[in-house]
């Protein structure tokens, strides 16, 4: 069997506060194959954001290990090495642009930090801007363009150093419904062209079914894996599939899991 691209092995994360210990993620395991598009679905506070922040070295793990390409990447208290971080691009819920930089400078930020210079990288920035239709706004400041455009810039910033993995933390959650659908389709397009491994975090059931090949459902208190659902839907996916029977079945199935979690929370 092929080696998994990403592997979580019994990962646990505790946050210590003065009055209590919060178990944000408990004993989480999953394996993701290269080129897969998976989503992690769960209500707010279930630790799904914590999960990918641990993968990207932003937060330490408390217990358990994370592997990328079979190599253990989490080392407590130590910064993740640049060659590991270069394999990943992180897309935040907000555009998270630095307001003093132009759109182009923002997109090129990872190149500066990773020390990737030269005309081929410059060209890559231009191509990416072109791809998401931001060429004419390249020299605009973030406050001058719309939220949708900013989020596109956020997506290509995460891709500019050509990572193999994209980590997306509810990337389109702050956008309006129409822009969101459009962005989802663009994302699928990017994925099919580049074949990157994508972990997509969302609390939107429809979105998770529409985009991914597999959905990991998480529950709260403590944040944990509740169920894994493999989606047997044809690719390429289109918005018209939302009304198909199979799609609705999956949606109801997931709604069931999320509902159960909510119910257990009330108890």
């Amino acid at each position, binding site marked *: 069997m092929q080696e998994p691209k990403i592997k979580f092995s019994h990962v646990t994360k505790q946050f210590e506060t003065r009055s209590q210990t919060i178990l944000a993620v408990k004993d989480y395991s999953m394996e993701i194959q290269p080129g897969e598009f998976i989503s992690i679905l769960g209500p707010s506070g279930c630790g799904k954001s914590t999960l990918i*922040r641990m993968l*990207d*070295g*932003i937060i330490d793990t408390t217990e358990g290990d994370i592997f990328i390409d079979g190599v253990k990447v989490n080392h407590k208290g130590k*910064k*993740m*090495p*640049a060659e590991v*971080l*270069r394999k*990943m*691009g*992180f897309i*935040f819920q*907000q555009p*998270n642009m*630095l*307001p*003093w930089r132009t759109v182009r400078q923002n997109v090129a*930020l*990872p190149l*500066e*930090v*990773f020390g990737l210079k030269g005309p081929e990288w410059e060209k890559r920035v231009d191509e990416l801007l072109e791809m998401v239709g931001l060429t004419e706004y390249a020299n605009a*400041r973030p*406050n001058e363009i719309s939220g949708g455009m900013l989020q596109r810039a956020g997506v290509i910033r995460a891709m500019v*150093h050509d990572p193999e993995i994209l980590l997306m933390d509810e990337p389109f959650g702050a956008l309006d419904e129409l822009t969101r659908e459009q962005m989802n389709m663009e994302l699928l397009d990017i994925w099919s062209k580049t074949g990157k491994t994508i972990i997509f975090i969302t609390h939107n059931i429809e979105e998770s079914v529409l985009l991914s090949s597999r959905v990991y459902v998480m529950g709260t208190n403590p944040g944990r894996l509740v169920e894994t659902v493999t989606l047997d839907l044809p690719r390429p996916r289109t918005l018209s599939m939302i009304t198909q029977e199979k799609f609705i079945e999956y949606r109801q199935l997931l709604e069931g899991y999320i509902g159960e979690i909510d119910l257990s929370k009330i108890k």
Partner: protein
Amino acid sequence: MKTKSRITSIVAPVVTFVLIFVAWEIACRVTGVPSWFVPKPSEIFHSMVVDFQVYLPHILVTLQCVLIGFLIAIPVGLIVSTLITSFPLLNAAMSPYITFLVTTPLISLIPLLMLAMGYGMSMRITVVVIQAFAVINMNACTGFNNVPTIRRELMQSVGASRLQTYWKMILPSAATDIITGLRLAAIFATTTCISVEYNAGNTGLGSQIIKYSQYMKTPESFACIFYVTIIGLIMYALISIIQKKIVNWQE
């Protein structure tokens, strides 16, 4: 529209200043108060121009003290605040003292410093530096501590080193607060310098103000006060210009 509003924002204050001085002049002339009691603005301006040669060395002394003090306080304030905010424990340990330094009128140290360092320039600059440093330090700490978490995460996600994070993200994020600190420091530096000169020595505008008031030469005294405010206003304006040049983005 924009140019029109820009013109108003220049013309309006000029008109206000002119009105204030005209009203003052008229009030003095109508009531006929002696100029040693309340000088007419015309006398003050006259003295500012005619006796400029007399004032100039003192203006230079004050200017030198304010500028050197201010220029030393900036890097010291920024370095200290950077150090303090870089370590959570240090941050917690020092934060009350940062406020403490600002709220303590450091001019109360003047008599003791005078004893230790004499009346000279070094003592004056020392007082200006500590007072200005305290304000810059406090505001810079606020700025550094209020950097959004999500921006830190961004820098972490691309594996930025501490130095890269500082230059590319933390410093620009705190720029607005730092400049606010500089602007206050300019005011504090001027005020403190005058207070020191007032209490120690016989050079500098502060010393002249007190000398002239003792001899009831009120117009000359006011002329010196006006020169002090001009120094303060120029520094304030310079910082505002720098702010517009450097912090030219909107959050």
